[in-house]
């Protein structure tokens, strides 16, 4: 632990970039994921097909390979991204598919009768979605979305292998410099991740209990 306290600035730097990656990816990926989810349930076949293909490909590609593409392949076809921008792009590509699935499962969790009732009073698809389904879906969507953000927080660690200095990089560098304290350093960094993820998890559990609907 001593090593961590002595290198507080390094820890802050890692923590800062981890939090920043999480925040930016959520800000870009969440609206994108919501659009994808909307496309996935829309009446227009081309939207459905496109969004399904995107989601399946993104969910079944290893995140490491996406990072690899941003860092080593794109420069070869003439598009060199800053490493931080590349990391955000990779994380957004990957995470937005999971955001989309969380939103879609929220849409599906709304009772069928709600949509039927909305349709029978004459609302169209757009109206049914925006006035009836989505307001109810939000409450069952938020806890899974928080779980996706937790997973995203852990996934930012992959950026370490592609030249972005995140929390995990702190563990690697310090355990090289202070070999005899490696165990404490790793526990310290793991706890640093828990500082982010545990409150988020608690929030998800709390909201899930608070918003549970009796059906």
């Amino acid at each position, binding site marked *: 632990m001593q090593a961590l306290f002595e290198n507080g600035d390094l820890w802050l730097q890692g923590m800062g970039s981890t939090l920043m990656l999480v925040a930016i990816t959520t800000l870009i990926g969440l609206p994108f994921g919501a659009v994808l989810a909307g496309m996935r*349930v829309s*009446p*227009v*076949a*081309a*939207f*459905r097909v*496109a969004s399904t293909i995107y989601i*399946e490909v993104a*969910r*079944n*590609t*290893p*995140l*490491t*390979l996406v990072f*690899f*593409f941003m860092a*080593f*392949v794109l420069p*070869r*076809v*003439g598009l060199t991204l800053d490493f931080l921008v590349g990391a955000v792009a990779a994380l957004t590509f*990957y*995470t937005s598919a*999971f955001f989309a699935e969380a939103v879609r499962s929220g849409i599906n969790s709304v009772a*069928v009768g709600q*949509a*039927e009732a909305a*349709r029978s009073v004459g609302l*169209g*698809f757009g109206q*049914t*979605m925006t006035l009836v*389904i989505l307001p109810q879906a939000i409450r069952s969507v938020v806890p*899974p979305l928080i*779980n*996706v953000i*937790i*997973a995203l927080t*852990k*996934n*930012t*660690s*992959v950026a*370490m*292998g592609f030249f972005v200095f995140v929390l*995990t990089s702190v*563990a*690697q560098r310090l*355990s*090289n410099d202070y070999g005899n304290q*490696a165990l404490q350093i*790793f526990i310290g*960094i*793991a706890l640093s*991740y*828990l500082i982010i993820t*545990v409150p988020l998890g608690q929030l998800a*559990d709390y909201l899930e209990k608070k918003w549970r609907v009796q059906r």
Partner: protein
Amino acid sequence: MSGTVLYDAPGPKARRVSRTLSVVFAVVFAALLGFGVYQLWLGGAFYADRWDIFLQAGTWTGAGGLLAGLTTTLSAFVLGSLLALVVGFAFALARASKSQAVRIPATIVLEFFRGMPVLLMILFVFIVANTGAFWAVVIALGIYNGAIIGEAIRSGIAALPRGQRESGLALGLGSFQTTILIELPQSIRTMLPIIIAQLVVLLKDTALGYIVSSADLITIGRRLANFFGAGQYALSMFFVMLAIYLALNLTLSWVARFVSRQVSKPRKGGKNLDGTRTAPLQLSTQALRVQHERDETEQTPEPPRP
């Protein structure tokens, strides 16, 4: 999409609008895609000299070939899965234990393992235990995914009807025997889709081996591309690796979905004394939900995390 209730079965006008939108979208999308492909073509991505290395045997076979990398990836997956299952059972039993001295430390350790990134654990095993890259990947993935699988099995046990345990005890089995012989097999059956979905995650995460330079598919692919000239082969090598990973993961995902369908089918009941069928045992997700509402303090099984 006949099952949806979000919109009516389209009439002629709606069909026309939908078709127009589809066509417009398809055209715009095709134009964008075509532009991208054209740019790549201008860059020479589709000339034979970008792909010729994949026709050479040396690219695929031998110690430095792609097949060797694929073998490393698959071995890490198989060994990691086995370890994850063993660790999962151990965690499930410890978490379901009656003794607090076992249950509470197990819970803390499990939360700790679940909360940290897998990559951190891989690095930890790699640097502290000094096992070499391959075994670091196997051990870390086994422990991390084992923690998640253990939690799934435990919530499967919690969701069983109480009568299962009671009748086991009434037959004279011990508490541990009841868990092993009666509850565990049923829990595994219910939770099989979640367990397999977690194995898909494990398969994807073997790619993290690249970061600690385990000789897996991505490491070897990069090495080969650099050897033959990265400027020429980086893109084609990426597409080949992407295709291999997609084929593996989509197959396993499909298996997960197939098993999920099988498991959610109602079980055939046995025969009553008068020859009528008994009601099938309630082991569906319905039973899980009922249990969840009954027991406010317990958590529902979490969906596998990305």
